[in-house]
Structure formats: structure tokens, C-alpha cells
């Protein structure tokens, strides 16, 4: 790589010729405030908060879009720079509600942090403030345009990362907003509820719909038996919301905290992830051996299911009919578990903790009532659980580890890797290989499907059977695979798709801010959890075996069909 020499705040450094001034500053350990810039999205140079002084330039430059060149001299914190940045932020705040104390992003907001860092004490400008109605007609996300600073990150995340293109800048001047086409609500736009826009939004302009009040109410109702399931990806990210470093594995503390909050039983979605593997794995074998629709595509990511229902309805036959682990779990809690414990299902409140905003929408799909009740009553994101733990005043880091309750808290390493891209595929391969060959695998680590490459392909031998598989994460990557299928150019038998970058660990309901580095740490933590499990194959899960033996019958059997499988339908939207 060709390098250039520059001087930045008196420090001489070498940086790649293609770097921006911002990247150069960061590599020298200098923090330049940014708002519209996001390390994983195309820079736009819109907000000007990243201004710096470049010797010889006529005015201050926006460092996030300004290229370096040989001999350049940069100053990032002169009086003029600091004053200009303050002006920019004060202008933003002049048209902002400034109700931090009662804001969902209080203490976790980039605008607030920058205002604090820049030492803003007084806002010198006064003017009309915008006022728009909330967009809150969907189960997953709330948009409050009054808090929008027009940085455009959500537009870029939805277009570049997800390929869905829900938002654009609308109108101009003072009336500019960031909105879906025709100013429709997200439920009318082609939105998948994946929450990636919320994940990149620096303020509270796009947030998860907060369902904590309903859960607190259930917890304090003595007549209710409140059970909770926690998704695999939550345990490797929740710590971040409570002051711990990225990649901390907090499974035991999380279980303890949930008990302190008052949940009657603390169960694990990993259990139903194992169950999903048995149903979905057998479905794959069935499709392979009986000329079924191939490639079969996984269906556990509800943002992904929305995507294909909205944009590729002609390919719905490819989706596995297996429900997601959340919904399998929900269906069992109010049937199997209710029967076993003799608790009336109408008194059970079933809560799930998910890394995902789309899960909130999945839970209220009309077909998700196999138990005769809404199978999952409330879905909280990792962020919401973090807030509940803080509200309860628990000292999370000091909590002693506790274990999940049996039987729906028993799981294997195959269940936990569902949280990372490639994990469902790997878990399925571990089981399918042994079912097909009838022999234990020599090596159960399928490294070819791991990692953060956008689309991974691998060829796997299952006995005499050679299977070609693909794994995609983010919807933009999924789209490429779907286009291949449409064009008849996909020779895969099995595809895993996760809507979010890195899989669920990068979900739209996970702690923010997040970047590739943090996602990698969460992924590593997930595989550590797998490595440390005594059981690492779903079909070895004793609680799942017992469930089949005593109650469910066999995978793809009649009861499974009724409780654990679903159907899909095209969604006509924007």
C-alpha cells in the first residue's frame, strides 16, 4: 500500500494514501467528533461536526471526506475548530427537543455525548423547532423525527447494508425529513423491522418499541406465572449495556438477574434452537430424498422472513417450514410445559429476550397462536433488558452466576451458535451428518461456514451425499443469493440467511454503538460458549430427546406439524 507522510497535531505519521484525514487522526489516537460518519457506511460529509484545520486550505474541512496527501499538516483542536464544531452542534440542538432526561437514549446518545464533550453550556441560537407525529404503528420500532438530526445514516444502512431502501431525504430546507416513500409508516413501507436503522441512529430518532412496562406489570401480578427465554446472542452482548466490555459472556449473571427481576422460570431459547435443528434438519433430509424444493433456506430470522415475503414472494417455497426457535419455544410453553406442571396456560405469561426488533413483530403474527393463545406474549430486546436491570438497581457485574431452569433451559453448543452467522448451518450439519450416516462425526467444527465474510459457500459430505451450502448475513447479501436462485444459477441444497450483520449477535436490538470489531468479539464469545459445552450436537440434548419420547413423537410428526411448523404469505407493501 502506498503511504504518505502527514503531520497531525504536531505528530508525524504515515498513513495509506487512500485514507481520509479522519482515519489518519484515528490511527494517531486522536478523537475527532463525528455524527453523520459511520465506519461501515459510505461517508457523506453532511453534518460538518468533524471539521479540522488543514494548512493551506481556505476553510475548515470535513475530515471524514477529506483525503490526505503528502506533507499535509492538520490541526484537530484549534480555537477556530472548536468554535466551529460548537456552532454546528448548537445549531442542531436549537432544532432538537433536548429532553434528554426522559429520553430512551439518555446516557447512550451520540448527540448528547458530543454536546457534553464539546462543553456546550448555552445554545446561542433560537428558532422554530420541527414537530412531526410519531411513527409508532408497528410492533417493532418507533420513529421520532423531532429527534432526527438528518445525518442520513439510517438511509445508508437500510440501502447499503440491507438493500431495502426504505428511507430517503424528503422535502427540503427547514422541512427536510428522513422518511419512507409517501411519508408512510414503516408498516406500509417495505420495511423488514430488522432494526439496523435503529442500530446506526446516533440519537433517539429510531428506537425499539419499549415493551418493558407490560413486562413489569406481568411480573408484579401474583396470579401470573411468568416464564422467560433468552436468545443465544443476548448472553454475549448484554454485558455491554451494563458497563462490561464487548465479548463478555454473561450467561450466568443474566439468569441470576432475570430471577431477581421476578421471573418464575428462566429458560433458554438454545433449547428450542436444538429442537429447530431436529425439525429443520429432518426437513432437509426429507427434501433431499424426496425431490423437495431446493435449496431449502432457513427461516429463523424474522427480518429475513419479512424480506422474502415482501420482496421475493415467488421464492417462499424455499423457506423451511420450521418455526423460529422463539416461536417453537412459545408454542411449547403454553402446551407441553403447562401440561407437565399443571399450570393453566391462560395464567402463563411468556416473555422472550431477543437481540432483535423483528422478533417483536414475529410474536404478533396471527398464525403464531398454536397453543390457542398468543404463544409469545412479550418480546424484549437486549437493550430493554439492560434498562430493566438498571431500573431494578442490580449490580450486574457482582451477581453470582446461576443456572437455567430445567427442562426448557437445557441445551447444547449447537443451540448457542445460532447466535452467529453460519451457526444454524453448522448446527444443522452436525445433526444431519450423523442422522444420514448413522455414525458419529470425527470433527464437528465446520470452519468453512464460520466468520464474517458476507457470503460463505462450502461443500460438505454427508456419507455418500455431497451437499453444497451457502451462508449469507445482511439482507443485501441475501438478495444476491435470491437473485441467483431466481436466475436458476444457484446449485446449493441448503442456505442459511440472517438479516443482520454477523447474525443475531449484530441484531437490531443489541447494545449500541456496535462496529465490526465488537461484532467479532461477540462471535468469538459465542464459539467459546460452544467449545465449553459438554454437549455440542442438538440431537444429543437430553431434554429434547425426552420431549420427543414422552410427548411430541418424532420430528415432522403430527404434533410437530401443528406446533412447530408454519407457513408464509406474500406481504404487499410500498
Amino acid at each position, binding site marked *: 500500500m502506498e503511504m504518505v507522510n502527514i503531520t497531525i497535531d504536531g505528530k508525524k505519521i504515515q498513513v495509506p494514501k487512500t485514507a481520509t484525514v479522519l482515519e489518519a487522526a484515528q490511527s494517531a489516537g486522536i478523537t475527532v467528533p463525528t455524527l453523520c460518519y459511520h465506519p461501515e457506511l459510505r461517508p457523506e460529509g453532511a453534518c460538518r461536526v468533524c471539521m479540522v484545520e488543514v494548512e493551506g486550505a481556505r476553510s475548515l474541512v470535513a475530515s471524514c471526506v477529506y483525503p490526505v496527501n503528502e506533507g499535509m499538516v492538520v490541526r484537530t483542536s484549534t480555537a477556530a475548530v472548536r468554535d466551529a464544531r460548537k456552532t454546528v452542534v448548537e445549531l442542531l440542538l436549537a432544532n432538537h427537543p433536548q429532553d434528554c432526561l426522559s429520553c430512551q437514549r439518555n446516557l447512550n446518545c451520540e448527540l448528547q455525548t458530543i454536546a457534553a464533550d464539546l462543553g456546550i453550556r448555552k445554545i446561542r441560537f433560537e428558532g422554530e423547532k420541527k414537530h412531526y407525529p410519531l411513527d409508532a404503528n408497528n410492533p417493532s420500532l418507533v420513529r421520532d423525527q423531532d429527534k432526527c438530526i438528518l445525518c442520513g445514516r439510517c438511509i445508508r444502512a437500510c440501502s447499503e447494508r440491507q438493500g431495502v431502501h426504505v428511507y*430517503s431525504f424528503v422535502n427540503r430546507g427547514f422541512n427536510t425529513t428522513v*422518511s419512507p416513500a*409517501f411519508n408512510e409508516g414503516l408498516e406500509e413501507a417495505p420495511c423488514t423491522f430488522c432494526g439496523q436503522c435503529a442500530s446506526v441512529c446516533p440519537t433517539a430518532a429510531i428506537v425499539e418499541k419499549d415493551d418493558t412496562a407490560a413486562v413489569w406489570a406481568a411480573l408484579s401480578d401474583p396470579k401470573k406465572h411468568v416464564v422467560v427465554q433468552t436468545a443465544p446472542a443476548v448472553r454475549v452482548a448484554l454485558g455491554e449495556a451494563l458497563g462490561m466490555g464487548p465479548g463478555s459472556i454473561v450467561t450466568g449473571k443474566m439468569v441470576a438477574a432475570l430471577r431477581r427481576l421476578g421471573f418464575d422460570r428462566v429458560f433458554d431459547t438454545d433449547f428450542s434452537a436444538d429442537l429447530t435443528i431436529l425439525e429443520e434438519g429432518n426437513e432437509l433430509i426429507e427434501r433431499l430424498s424426496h425431490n423437495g424444493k431446493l435449496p431449502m433456506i432457513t427461516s429463523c430470522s424474522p427480518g429475513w422472513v419479512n424480506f422474502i415475503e415482501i420482496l421475493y414472494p415467488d421464492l417462499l417455497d424455499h423457506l423451511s417450514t420450521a418455526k423460529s426457535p422463539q416461536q417453537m419455544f412459545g408454542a411449547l410453553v403454553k402446551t407441553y410445559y403447562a401440561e407437565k406442571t399443571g399450570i393453566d396456560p391462560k395464567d402463563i405469561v411468556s416473555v422472550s429476550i431477543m437481540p432483535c426488533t423483528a422478533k417483536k413483530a414475529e410474536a404478533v403474527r396471527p398464525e403464531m397462536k398454536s397453543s390457542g393463545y398468543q404463544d409469545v406474549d412479550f418480546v424484549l430486546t437486549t437493550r430493554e433488558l439492560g434498562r430493566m436491570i438498571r431500573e431494578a438497581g442490580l449490580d450486574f457485574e457482582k451477581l453470582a452466576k446461576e443456572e437455567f431452569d430445567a427442562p426448557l433451559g437445557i441445551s447444547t453448543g449447537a443451540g448457542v451458535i445460532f447466535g452467529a452467522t453460519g451457526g444454524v448451518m453448522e448446527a444443522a450439519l452436525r445433526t444431519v451428518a450423523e442422522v444420514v450416516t448413522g455414525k458419529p462425526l470425527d470433527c464437528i467444527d465446520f470452519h468453512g461456514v464460520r466468520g464474517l465474510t458476507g457470503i460463505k459457500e462450502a461443500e460438505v459430505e454427508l456419507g455418500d451425499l455431497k451437499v453444497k451450502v451457502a451462508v449469507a448475513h445482511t439482507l443485501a447479501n441475501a438478495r444476491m443469493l435470491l437473485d441467483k436462485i431466481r436466475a436458476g444459477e444457484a446449485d446449493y441444497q441448503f442456505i442459511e440467511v440472517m438479516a443482520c450483520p454477523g447474525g443475531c449477535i449484530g441484531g437490531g436490538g443489541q447494545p449500541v454503538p456496535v462496529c465490526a470489531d465488537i461484532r467479532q468479539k461477540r462471535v468469538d464469545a459465542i464459539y467459546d460458549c460452544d467449545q465449553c459445552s459438554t454437549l455440542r450436537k442438538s440431537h444429543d440434548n437430553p431434554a429434547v430427546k425426552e420431549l420427543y419420547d414422552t410427548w411430541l413423537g418424532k420430528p415432522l410428526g403430527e404434533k410437530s406439524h401443528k406446533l412447530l411448523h408454519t407457513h408464509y404469505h406474500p406481504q404487499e407493501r*410500498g
Partner: protein
Amino acid sequence: MSNTEKKCCCGGNDGKHFAQLDEILVKYQGVKGALIPVLQEAQNAYGYLPKDVVKRIAEKMNIPASQIYGVATFYAQFHLNPRGRNIIRVCQGTACHVRGAKAVLKAIEDQLQIAAGQTTPDLQFTIETVACIGACGLAPVMMINDDTHGRLTPAIVPEILKKYS
């Protein structure tokens, strides 16, 4: 939400609704940067840019509807709602403002029971506000189509509007 394709303002979808649009789209097929001219011609053909027309342009030109909507709302020349046979432009410039343009606008809105930017259900009137029409001597002033009406008071609004209904 659904069936938007079947709704249109010009009397049901007999399959011919898009005929004009499709001609325009064919004309610009493969032309780079054709979005703006396509929107202009579509607006000429339909009087405004109905939602189903925007959606069809999005589909045929392979441009996200959100982006087209962004472009169409950026330029004042594009209209996303049907426009009335009579366009009322009420000046809200400084001179008119100090002479009571707000009250005049309110009187018009009350009389027609629509807000500025909207069109009456019978498509008789559209109310728009403009920054200045260069007739400050007559403030407060409005234009209806090509006629200028000056020295307005809320009281004479009904009389003027009567002439156009």
C-alpha cells in the same frame, strides 16, 4: 396498503391507466439520468404524480420508490396530490405578512375546508402558499390561476372564490 394498483383518481383501472406512462417509460428506456424527465412527462400526462404511477416508475426504472419520492418532494414543480382546476396561491411574503396574510389564508382555508397544500374533494380548488409574487404594493395578495387579487381582507374572500366555483 394492498390494491393500490387498482385505485386511481381517473375512474377505475381499466388496464389503460398506465398506457401513457408506459409510453413515456419506453421512450426513456436505457437513458441515463432520465428520472426527472420521466417524472415531468408523467406529471403532464396525469396532472400530478399519483402513488401508483410513482410505484410503477420505481419498478420499471429499478429505482427505489423512496428515492423517487425524495426527488419529487425536493423540487417544487412536482405534485404528489391531485391538483384542483383552480390554483390559489396566497402570498406569505414579508409585505403581505405584515398586512394580515395569515388571516386571509385562514379565511380561504375555512371557506374551502382544506389546509394550504391541499385540494378540495371536488377538485375545484388547490390552496398553495408562496413566498412573494412581486405585487407587494397590493398586499396582502393572492393569485387564482393567472388573476391577481390584492388588498385582501378575510371578509371579501368568499365573494372572490364564488367567481371560480
